[in-house]
């Protein structure tokens, strides 16, 4: 082999070696890149695992919070209901207070009657009603004040004997009478009212409040109405009785005074 051909052979081998080395370098680079990618992928999986755990933790926490929220909401509902109840009681007490305060604010008979009428209209919401007083000499109940003659004709002239009919029975027994129209229905008449409440001083009945019709926006009696009826039964009776006694004593006093004046001037 000549020197020239040996050199060519060597150059050929060298070039092949160069190509091979370049290929190896490329493969090495590719593998390094692949390794780096794999390393990155591996890190993401860890991150995903960590995030998964965190998501689970947050889901549990969320569930706990939602449960607590429901509990608090329930408590809140209880408080709201309680608040409404207390507000209603407060309102009822205010109405009862005003009613009793008004009833004892005067000794004038006409004013007392007017106050009873105001309570029945403004606090109970009656449209047609009558206040009857018992004449102890004749044992007869008679209208002394009323409202709603248009809605209940004849309400201004009611007359009932003690013990006769619903009104007379209420006056005799001292037991209140109510109709629940939704259940009992039937026609409301002068003798068959919606409610008849005795005006009592202890067990002594001096008259009745008789209700025939409620205001159109009021469907039926409420719980506080019955309390108002109880209050009226006792306090209105006392107020009416006191004012009657007062006006009688005033009249007597005036008579005596006039008599004294007459004596002293002579």
């Amino acid at each position, binding site marked *: 082999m000549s020197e020239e051909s040996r050199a060519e052979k060597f150059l050929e081998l060298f070039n092949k070696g160069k190509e091979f080395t370049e290929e190896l370098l490329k493969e090495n680079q590719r593998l390094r890149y692949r390794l780096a990618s794999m390393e990155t992928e591996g890190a993401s999986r860890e991150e995903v695992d960590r995030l998964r755990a965190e998501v689970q933790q947050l889901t549990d926490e969320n569930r706990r919070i939602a449960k607590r929220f429901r509990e608090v909401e329930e408590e809140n509902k209880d408080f709201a209901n309680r608040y409404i109840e207390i507000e209603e009681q407060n309102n009822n007490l*205010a*109405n009862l207070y005003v009613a009793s305060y008004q009833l004892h604010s005067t000794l004038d008979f006409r004013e007392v009657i007017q106050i009873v009428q105001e309570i029945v209209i*403004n606090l109970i*919401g009656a449209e047609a009603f009558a206040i009857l007083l018992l004449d102890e000499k004749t044992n007869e109940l008679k209208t002394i004040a009323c409202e709603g003659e248009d809605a209940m004709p004849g309400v201004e002239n009611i007359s009932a004997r003690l013990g006769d009919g619903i009104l007379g029975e209420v006056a005799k027994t001292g037991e209140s009478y109510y109709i629940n129209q939704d259940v009992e229905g039937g026609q409301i008449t002068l003798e068959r009212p919606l409610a008849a409440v005795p005006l009592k001083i202890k067990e002594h009945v001096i008259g009745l409040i008789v209700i025939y019709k409620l*205001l159109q*926006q*009021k469907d039926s009696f409420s719980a506080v109405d019955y309390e108002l009826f109880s209050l009226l039964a006792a306090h209105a009776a006392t107020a009416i009785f006191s004012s009657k006694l007062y006006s009688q004593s005033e009249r007597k006093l005036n008579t005596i005074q006039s008599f004294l004046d007459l004596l002293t001037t002579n």
Partner: protein
Amino acid sequence: MRQLISFSLKRFKNARIIEAVDGVDALKKLSGPDKIDLILTDINMPVMDGLKLVSLVRQNAQLKNIPIIIITTEGAEEDRERGLALGANAYISKPIQSSHLIKTISELLAV
């Protein structure tokens, strides 16, 4: 009714109540030296009824912004609509619930 309103207004410190016997008397008092923050009126009143009062107040440049509450036995929907259309800010049908009255006044006076 005045007693119940007076009692309900005790909730509002320093509230002073000026009473009027009818719409004409109310207008006279509204034109007086006292600054009125709120008008409470019935519909059924002698001489001048509550609806006429509401209408006249709303036409008066000095009084037109005073809040008005109608308190009445007239509970029909058309009565309510009429009262509100004339310019009342609130319409309360009897029987009176003091808590409702207090709430309405608080809202109108923003107290």
